[in-house]
């Protein structure tokens, strides 16, 4: 396991390097002058030159890149143009709120999809199964930038049950987490249902039945464990969508996380901060994928990464 972890971490490095380079190129090499964008077209050329020099933008691209990489290696993501704070600090301060939101969304997705998927598979063809199918179809088709405002209209404005926006107690978390988690719940419900229906006809299930194992145990232990593989993969892959979807969800509910910071940075043309935010989200995503691989191995002892 230790060897696998080290190998997997080493494999992460080239992708990480590529991702960092891509973000750098995106911000620095794309046409458009950030200095002009920040100061406005009417700024004097002396002012522009001064700001460009201050940001190191008057240097050739390879030198800017080298400086950026050296800074990054020591955890320095530069300074925010807007409020002069350290980008790394700004990002880290917002990270907990985003993690709270995405983990809550994931928890909701798992809490909904497992019972619903198992129920739909066990009673496949029933009215309940059809309802579960309908849920997964609509859950996938409803964009979060519609679901969020709709939930807000119904539960905050009309019924007055939950706060409209902001971060605070658990009540504040409910609507954003549902908004963000619904699509994932829909995907997982479908996967769990079809995975279970496929495995329930396998020979080993028939053997277990012949040995007199109870139905409940067969579904929950024998069949479900086999479907867990694909669920873990999807959860890992979907976590990236959750992080990205958090940008929209945070914007709807004024949730003070990384997503909202990214949007504010874009609006104020704070390029170092945009760069830092995008990197933070991408790195979180890569780390979650790594975690998925490790979990995958823990659940399925058949998989070997040694060779």
């Amino acid at each position, binding site marked *: 396991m230790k060897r696998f972890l080290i190998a997997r971490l080493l494999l992460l490095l080239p992708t990480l390097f590529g991702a960092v380079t891509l973000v750098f190129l995106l911000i620095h090499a794309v046409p458009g002058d950030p200095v002009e964008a920040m100061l406005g077209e009417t700024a004097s050329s002396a002012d522009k030159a001064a700001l460009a020099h201050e940001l190191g933008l008057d240097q050739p691209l390879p030198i800017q890149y080298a400086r950026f990489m050296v800074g990054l290696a020591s955890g320095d993501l530069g300074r925010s143009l807007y409020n002069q704070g350290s980008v790394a600090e700004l990002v880290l301060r917002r990270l907990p709120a985003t993690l709270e939101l995405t983990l809550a969304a994931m928890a909701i997705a798992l809490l909904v999809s497992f019972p619903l998927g198992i129920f739909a598979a066990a009673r496949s063809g029933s009215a309940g199964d059809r309802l579960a199918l309908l849920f997964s179809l609509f859950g996938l088709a409803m*964009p979060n*930038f519609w679901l969020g405002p709709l939930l807000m209209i119904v539960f905050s404005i009309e019924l007055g049950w939950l706060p409209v926006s902001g971060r605070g107690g658990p009540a504040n978390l409910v609507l954003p987490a549902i908004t963000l988690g619904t699509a994932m719940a829909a995907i997982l419900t479908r996967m769990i249902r079809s995975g279970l229906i496929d495995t329930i006809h396998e020979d080993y299930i028939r053997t277990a039945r012949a040995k007199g194992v109870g139905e409940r145990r067969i579904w929950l232990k024998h069949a479900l464990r086999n479907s867990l593989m694909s669920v873990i993969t999807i959860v890992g892959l979907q976590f990236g969508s959750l*992080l990205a979807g958090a940008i929209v969800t945070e914007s709807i509910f004024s949730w003070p996380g990384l997503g909202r910071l990214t949007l504010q940075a874009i609006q104020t043309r704070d390029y170092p901060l945009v760069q830092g935010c995008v990197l933070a989200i991408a790195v979180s*995503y890569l780390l979650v994928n790594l975690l998925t691989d490790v979990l995958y191995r823990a659940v399925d002892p058949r998989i070997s990464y040694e060779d």
Partner: protein
Amino acid sequence: MKTNTALTIGVILLAALGVAAALAPALAPYSATAQNLAYDLAPSSADHLLGTDKLGRDVLSRIVYGSRISLGVGATIVAVSLAIGLLIGALCGYFGGRTDLLLMRLVDVLMAFPGILLAIAFTAVLGPGLDHVVIALALIGWTGYARLVRGEILSLREKDFVHSVRALGGSPLRIIARHIVPNLLPALLIQATFGMAAAIIAEGSLSFLGLGAEPPTPSWGAMLNEGRQFILVAPHLTAYPGLAITITVLALNLAGDGLRDRLEKRGK
């Protein structure tokens, strides 16, 4: 039986949307941009079935015209992504070697980002606008097609019929275009259908965040963004454009599910 239902409903809905987009000027009761400030933020009425927005524009008309944006942008993104993916996937799969290694690493890196995040970063640098949305989403969207094409070519390359064509002197281009691509069409069609649904949601997200369509373009996502300020007094501005996106995405997903069941089962 059930798969046919999905495909049928999906195709009927898509056809209806296609008609709405094609005949928008005839179907929409008003122009998408005609303002009537004396009649702003009005709820549904006989004159304005889905109400009006902050400038007194007819919401139904804007939604009908908006289908042109959603379907047009979605189709363009899929077409460009598909073309890039086909080209790069074919290059990698057929020729292999260093080209393959380099391009596939690029695919890995692009796939290391959640797609919409990269699109947000792109449009942040390029500035808002539907053309920038199309560029950003197409530059990200090709990776899935490239992987698919490459994988299929790797497995088809060694098939007997490809060997025969090569022995008969068929050029690589001819082999790819005439013999390999037709084999790939079902898989590409399925992926393109789901890809279009994803592209429509992505355009909607970017426009909702103010990074996509600019006023007065009747993009559904942009309409939802405008509706946010009036969520207390005019919830209809939020309800209807979102419903339009949901129906469109649902139609594409149903069609994709139906196609997958039909084409992949037939192949096996």
